[in-house]
Every structure is written in C-alpha cells, then in structure tokens.
C-alpha cells in the first residue's frame, strides 16, 4: 500500500469519524439517530463555497457563516421537528424517523434551490505548502482536516468528562424520564447536544469539501457513511467513532484499489449487512452499568 493511499484513508477517515461523532452526541443526548447530519455538513460546505465563489467573501468569513448555518439547522431540527413529534406521539420510533427523513430531504432541496444544483469545489481554509512525509505529501486541506479532527475529539472527550453538562449527557439519552425526575436540565442538555453535533458536522463538511467537491445531494451519502462509521465503531466510548470512521475509510479507499471502480459501494453495502446482521452493537460497547 502506497503512503499516498494511507494518507487518503486518514483523510476520509477523519471525515467519517467527525460525522459519526456528530451522530453519537445526538444519540446520547436525545436517543435519536439524526439522519439530517449529512445535510448539515453539506449545507456548511456548500454555503462556504457559494459565498466565496459567487459573492467573493473571504474564506474564513464564509466558513464561519457555513458553520453558523449548520448549527442553526441542527437547533431548528430539534426544536421545530423532533421535539414536537415526540411531544405528540411519545417515544415512538417511526414518526421520529420519518420526520428526520423529511428534514434531510428538505435541507437538500432548499440548498439546491438557494445555492443551485451544480457541483461546487471545496475552499481551502488555510493555505500553506504541502508537508512532505517521505515519498508522500500532505496537502494543506488534509493537514487542516487531520488537526481539526484530533482537536474536536480531544475537546469532546474532555467536555464529556470534565464538564457537568457533558457528564449528564448520557444520562439524559439513556432515560429521559428518569433524568427529568432527578431534576436534570433535560431540555438544555439536549439542545446543547444538537448544537454541538451541528457544529461538528458543519466543520466536517466544509473541511472535506475540497476532496470530492460538494453538491446539494451530497448530504444523504454523508449521512449514511457517518451512520455506518458509528455502527462499526460502536457507541461505547467517545473514541469509538474514530475507530469506526477509520475502518470504514479503509474499506472505502482500498476496495476500488483492489476490485475496480464500482467496488466501493458494494463493499460498503456488504460491511453494513455484515455488521447489522452480526454485530449491531459495534466494536466498542459500553460496559453494563447497574
């Protein structure tokens, strides 16, 4: 395996990991798989590119605007869609799933209508010379994505462990009713989970856009990748999404390399089927707590 291929895995793996982490936060805080996470990432990436290429914004300002859009979308999803559905129908799973799917599609269509239905190139956030690593070289966007991923994971791990809100997060998702009885600020914690998840997804989207470009339909695929990375890694630890993301990226990058161009989709489908059928709890599972 060439070093360049290895760097590709790291790069794609960082993206998958961030998406999976975004999933995990909402899953812990609200017990929902938020399938609209891919579209948050898409919206951030697309908005950034659109602001830079069409309106001539400076990259950093555009990126901040993109992140803000992702965060707002996440907060609105929680407050305007998922909460009302849960309030009306209790904890039933299917209505929440349908509402999330509708949100996914709505963001996609809205982005297509506002930003146009073409492909946009990603915008490099920071410009510096590629860093040589032996025979391979890491480009500026690759380095940015890697550093951002490490930083995000470290910060989230620290937040979950050290802050009061972070420690309460999992208790809320596990049993909302019990958490309410214990007097935890369920609504606030849940809101924070959604906002953080939007922020992380947005960051992932705008940092990854340079790799494959971004269009209004990218979100669905990104959602599925993030979900799969989460399922592979498991929900047992904040680091599990990182492992799941890297493994999924290895499958995604290596299968076309060995089995031809269309193999990535088949390989990912196969991995999904295997994991869902045999090991749906992921590689890292939480210890049973009493």
């Amino acid at each position: 395996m060439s070093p360049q291929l290895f760097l590709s895995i790291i790069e794609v793996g960082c993206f998958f990991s961030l998406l999976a982490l975004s999933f995990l936060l909402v899953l812990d805080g609200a017990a929902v798989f938020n399938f609209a996470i891919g579209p948050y990432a898409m919206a951030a990436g697309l908005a950034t590119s659109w602001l830079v290429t069409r309106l001539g914004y400076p990259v950093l300002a555009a990126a901040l605007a993109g992140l803000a859009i992702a965060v707002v979308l996440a907060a609105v999803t929680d407050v305007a869609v998922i909460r009302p559905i849960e309030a009306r129908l209790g904890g039933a799973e299917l209505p929440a799933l349908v509402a999330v799917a509708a949100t996914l599609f709505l963001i996609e269509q809205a982005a297509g209508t506002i930003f146009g239905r073409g492909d946009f190139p990603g915008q490099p956030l920071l410009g510096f010379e590629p860093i040589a690593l032996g025979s391979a070289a890491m480009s500026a966007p690759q380095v940015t994505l890697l550093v951002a991923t490490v930083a995000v994971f470290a910060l989230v791990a620290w937040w979950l462990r050290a802050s009061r809100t972070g420690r309460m997060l999992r208790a809320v998702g596990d049993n909302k009713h019990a958490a309410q009885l214990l007097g935890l600020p369920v609504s606030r914690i849940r809101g924070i989970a959604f906002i953080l998840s939007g922020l992380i997804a947005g960051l992932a989207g705008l940092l990854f856009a340079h790799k494959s470009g971004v269009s209004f339909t990218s979100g669905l695929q990104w959602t599925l990748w993030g979900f799969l990375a989460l399922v592979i890694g498991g929900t047992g630890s904040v680091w599990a999404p990182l492992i799941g993301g890297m493994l999924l990226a290895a499958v995604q990058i290596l299968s076309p390399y060995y089995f031809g161009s269309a193999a990535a989709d088949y390989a990912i489908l196969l991995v999904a089927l295997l994991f869902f059928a045999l090991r749906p709890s992921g590689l890292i599972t939480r210890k049973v707590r009493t």
Partner: protein
Amino acid sequence: MAHESTALLSAADLNKSYGGVRAVREVSLDVGPGEVVGLIGPNGAGKTTLVDLLSGTQSADSGRITLRGRVISGAPSRRARAGLARTFQYPQLAPDLTVWENILLGRLHRRMGSAWGIMRTAVRSLLRPVHRDDADEVDRICAALHISEPQRLWSDLTLGEQRLIEVARALAQEPDVLLLDEPFAGSDAEGEAGIRRAVATVSGRGHGVVLVDHNVDIVASLVERVVLMDQGAVAFEGPPDECLRSPEMRQVYFGTATAQAQQQDAADSARPEASATDRVQEEGDR
C-alpha cells in the same frame, strides 16, 4: 421432578440477571391441569420477570420450561402457538382496532403460525371477511365475559375494561396455560367478575392458570396454591391460608423493609420497562 409427568407447565431452575442484579434466581414452578396458581410478592419481587421468561418476552439466562412435557423455547409467538397465553401488566391493545378485532387477534395463531400461513391469510383476506369460526368464537367470548359494544375503540375504554379485553384475547387463544399479570389492578366490580369467569372457564376445561397479583386477598380467594416470591426467589409455596400465616409471608411483606426497598429499587432500575418511581411509591403505600 415428580411433577413433570403430570404438570401442564413446568419451569425448572430459571435464572435472569440484569447487570449485577439477579431478578429471578433458581425459580421452579409447576402448574397442573385445571389448577390455578397464585404468584404473589411485593413489587420488584420478580413476578413479571418470571411471566416474561415463561412467555418468551424475555429470554432466561438458564433453566428449562416444558409444556405438556415438551420443552418450549424461542420467540413468544412460538410459545403462544405451543399453548401459552398471557396478559400484560400494562395492557397492550392495538389503538387502531376495535375491541372485537383486538380479541380476534387471539384466534389468528392457528392461521398465521408460519410464513406460509401469513401469506395465505393475506390472499384470503382480499376475498373473504373474517373466518366464520373465529367470528363466532369471539362473539361467544364477548357474551361470556359480558363485553358490551365490541365495536368500541381502545381510546374509549377504562383501564379495567382494557384488562378484560386482554384477558378475552388470551382466552381466544384457547391456551393450555394462561398467564395473567396483575389482571385486577384498576378493575371495577364488573371487570373483576369477567376476569373471574375467564379464570373459571380455563381451569374448568382442565387447563392451567398462573395469576400474578400483589393483592393477596383476591389471589387467595381464587387459587388452591400460591407461590410467594421475594427478591427473585421463591420464598414459600403452599395453600393460600398457610401462606398468609407463614413466617415467610410476614418476613417478606413486613420484614426489614428498608434493606428490602433498596434492593428492589436496584432491581427495578435495571429492568428496562419498569417505572421505578411507581413501584417505590406503591411500596411506600403498603
């Protein structure tokens, strides 16, 4: 073991733990033909868990269950087809169906017991309405249990009526053994009378009934034998009057209440569907 040849339902050495809490430990239970067995004990003693293990709603960690001498295992639907029917502590009625249709559900395992049967029923239901025998049987059960206005929807029913409908659905299964989980909670006099009739019908046919309740008085008036559970294990087994006078009974219900409440609390919080507060509340009332 001597029972096994004669018992309808025989459970041996059942165990179930959640995390570190042993919700059911080494429980054995026999139900003979025509017998009504009462399962009593304070909240959190493991009664509902035991019913779940018997019916397959949860799977036991270890142990063996036989019905008419045959080992039963696997999904609840398999055990239901083998002859086990149950009701739920929190009634599970389809909100979209009428009372009559909810009772009809109990009849369908004989036609929809396999993938093939399900497909045949699907095709058949395009052409013809409900099978005549099934409809007649549901009408008979409604009449026998004094269920009026069977075209009502679930949302129109009181908790007591819901329990009666569940019992009717279980009765429609024509089970060998009927497991009733707290059928009297929330019942009015009419519902209670209906449930008593159902119990009499099943035992009159030579089938068995397991009656779970924490209301010892109601149970004592209906059964020949009670099993007293405490902290997941069987504490006493025998005729109801003996049980009521037994030291175990006093120990379980009035004994070292604080230590016990803590343990139950732990057991409840580990159990997925139990609402811990309700139980602690009721425990306090006692």
